């Protein structure tokens, strides 16, 4: 390879796309490092504080697509106080200053101000794609700027963001000349949408493949929109409330017959269950169905719908489907790869899901590789059966609603069950545990979970040994997040070099002391060790013996960050 001219190597590198492979290429030799960095267009940064934007721009001058993640995962569950950080503005500012030809920006758990969206919309003439997941602070004013100024916008995808509605008609800000939209998802917006404006936008977007509406778009508008966009592949229904005995509903039923391209269906943010019959005609084509935000659909109606969905690969649903419904899924959806079952508040215990539903799924869906399962109980026997039936799990996340519940049949902890999972699923990359668990489960994880990259632990374990088994055994571990476990200083400090091989470690309500964190921070200058001190008395001294309520540490080349709020102490 040393004798090939650069152009040939560049050409070969074009075929190498994944971040990990690209990273590997850059480590081979100096000339490969140089060629790789000059040709890399997509960069993924899992922790926005691990590196400065300037350094990124310097290394990758051809940057076109950037993915940034901000807050730690447990921020989703209200464990990170407000104002922690993850501000995107400095990144956009630096990219603009560096005259980067940015085309795509994907952000997750970041703080996105309207100013940043305004700057983004003006500084990058070729900007095409904005994806915001679980972000906050922006309003519809920021969206208006994007709509108005991004001349070649193809994708605006807003997922699960907290957005303030400032009235003001942001959708109208798409100029008449904007005809390039391929994907538009505004399902998380709470405010009203001008339906006429939306219909005209859809009408002039012949390439529109993905459209996800918010709650303010009524069923009659949906029908008109679908008439204009029969080429849609991915549909998110907004409001789906109608009296089925009306002409409007009959019109919709007829329109659905023309929507044969739809393979992904979601939404139903408010729904009249009897109207779901209109969807039966497209169900046979669906590979992805997300009804996890469609509250109030009785299990029986869910079952009726699912019976038509024989090609389903991804299913996100609420536990109102029940164990019986999961049995129907198991019999119908033989291609199922990913299943998520979410808890609904208002369900009697008889309708919720238990280990029985999961066992049924494992028997009927051998291709299953990703699971997120909220349930009322789990048994070791069930987990052992599931492990045997589905050895291909990549992601296995179990959340028992009573976090420390033992196996109800034997009253034993769930160590053996999870042990079976890690032993059988050699490709497991992500694992979340719950239920009553001793140190033993961590011994199993350390022994068998060789590919494990992310582990989430809550209310588990008995001693420092538990955490040490994991740190010792899981060579590929990148993210470890622990809450309410009896792991302390010994566990934290035994193998401090490990943390530079990982992206981050979160520990809250454990037994770690301030003193140990200080020691760690001192010995490892390339780690930021943050302690959150939420007491009102901000000037109180942190005493070494004090237990740390929340600690978040991450490797970084950027040094101590300058935007941390008062309650964050970077040691």
């Amino acid at each position, binding site marked *: 390879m040393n004798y090939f001219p650069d152009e040939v190597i560049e050409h070969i590198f074009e075929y190498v796309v994944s971040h990990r492979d690209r990273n590997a290429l850059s480590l081979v030799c100096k000339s490969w490092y140089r060629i790789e960095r000059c040709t890399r267009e997509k960069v993924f940064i899992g922790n926005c504080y691990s590196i400065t934007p300037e350094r990124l721009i310097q290394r990758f001058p051809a940057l076109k697509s950037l993915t940034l993640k901000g807050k730690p995962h447990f921020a989703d569950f209200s464990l990170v106080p407000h104002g922690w950080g993850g501000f995107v503005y400095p990144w956009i500012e630096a990219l603009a200053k560096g005259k980067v030809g940015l085309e795509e920006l994907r952000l997750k758990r970041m703080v996105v101000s309207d100013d940043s969206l305004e700057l983004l919309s003006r500084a990058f003439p070729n900007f095409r794609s904005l994806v915001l997941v679980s972000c906050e602070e922006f309003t519809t004013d920021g969206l208006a700027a994007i709509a108005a100024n991004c001349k070649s916008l193809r994708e605006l995808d807003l997922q699960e963001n907290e957005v303030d509605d400032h009235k003001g008609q942001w959708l109208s800000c798409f100029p008449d000349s904007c005809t390039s939209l391929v994907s538009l998802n505004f399902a998380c917006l709470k405010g009203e949408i001008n339906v006429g404006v939306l219909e005209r936008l859809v009408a002039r977007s012949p390439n529109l493949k993905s459209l996800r509406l918010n709650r303010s778009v009524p069923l009659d508008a949906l029908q008109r929109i679908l008439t204009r966009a029969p080429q849609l592949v991915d549909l998110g229904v907004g409001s789906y409330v109608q009296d089925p005995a009306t002409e409007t509903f009959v019109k919709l039923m007829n329109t659905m017959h023309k929507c044969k391209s739809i393979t992904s269906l979601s939404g139903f943010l408010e729904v009249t269950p009897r109207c779901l019959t209109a969807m039966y005609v497209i169900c046979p084509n669906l590979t992805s169905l997300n009804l*996890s935000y469609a509250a109030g659909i009785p299990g029986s109606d869910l079952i009726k719908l699912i019976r038509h969905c024989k090609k389903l690969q991804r299913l996100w649903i609420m536990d109102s489907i029940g164990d019986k419904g999961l049995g129907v899924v198991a019999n119908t959806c033989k291609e199922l790869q990913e299943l998520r079952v*979410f808890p609904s508040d208002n369900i009697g215990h008889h309708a919720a899901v238990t280990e029985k539903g999961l066992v049924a799924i494992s028997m009927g869906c051998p291709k299953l590789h990703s699971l997120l399962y909220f349930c009322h109980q789990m048994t070791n026997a069930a987990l052992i059966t599931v492990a045997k039936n589905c050895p291909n799990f990549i992601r296995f996340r179990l959340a028992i609603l009573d976090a420390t519940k033992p196996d109800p049949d034997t009253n034993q902890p769930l160590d053996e069950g999870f042990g079976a999972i890690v032993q059988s699923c050699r490709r497991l990359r992500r694992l979340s545990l719950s239920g009553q668990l001793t140190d033993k489960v961590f011994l199993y994880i350390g022994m068998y979970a060789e590919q494990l990259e992310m582990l989430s632990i*809550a209310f588990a374990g008995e001693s420092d040994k538990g955490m040490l088994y994991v740190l010792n055994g899981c060579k590929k571990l990148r993210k470890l997040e622990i809450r309410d476990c009896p792991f302390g200083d010994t566990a934290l400090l035994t193998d401090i070099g490990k943390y530079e091989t990982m992206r981050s470690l979160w520990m809250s309500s454990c037994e770690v002391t301030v003193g140990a964190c200080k020691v760690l921070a001192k010995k490892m200058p390339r780690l930021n060790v943050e302690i959150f001190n939420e007491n009102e008395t901000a000037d109180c001294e942190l005493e070494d013996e004090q237990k740390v309520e929340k600690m978040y540490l991450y490797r970084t080349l950027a040094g101590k960050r300058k935007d941390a709020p008062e309650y964050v102490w970077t040691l």
Partner: protein
Amino acid sequence: MEKEGIGLEITELRLGLPGGGGDSSSEKNKKKRVFSEIEDATDDRKTGERKNQVVGWPPVCSYRKKNSSITSSKMYVKVSMDGAPFLRKIDLAMHKGYSELGFALEELFGCHGMTAEKCEQVPIYEDKDGDWMLVGDVPWQMFIESCKRLRIMKRSDAKGFGLQPKGSLKGFIQGV
């Protein structure tokens, strides 16, 4: 003489809720159920968090928590209180149960002790059919879907409505 007494009881006409349960003790129990729910919740508030009120468990992300319940849309209803000069509005979707509603109403009108058993005020609501119902009989979810407006009525006025805690409805039912 006794016989006559019994006979008179049977024929005594009383106004009462249609389909209302038999005797006075079950009436009392119904009321008790409403307020005891509130009392239990009060005790819980006093003694601290219950097991299923741990922050961040179950690990459902906060956006999903706010947006995937059937009550995630706002459900403002008018609330009138007898004797108050103007009405208020309350968002039923903001509350998870009768006890929370009770506290909210107390705060709104500055009246205290409504959640106690022998309170001066009785909360009633108008349902989808236009009937006035006593708050607390049906499951919370069912209640918020059918409640059109609330009224806080003086207990003494409630007698006129037939919402009295004692008195036999047996005769009325048999007569129907």
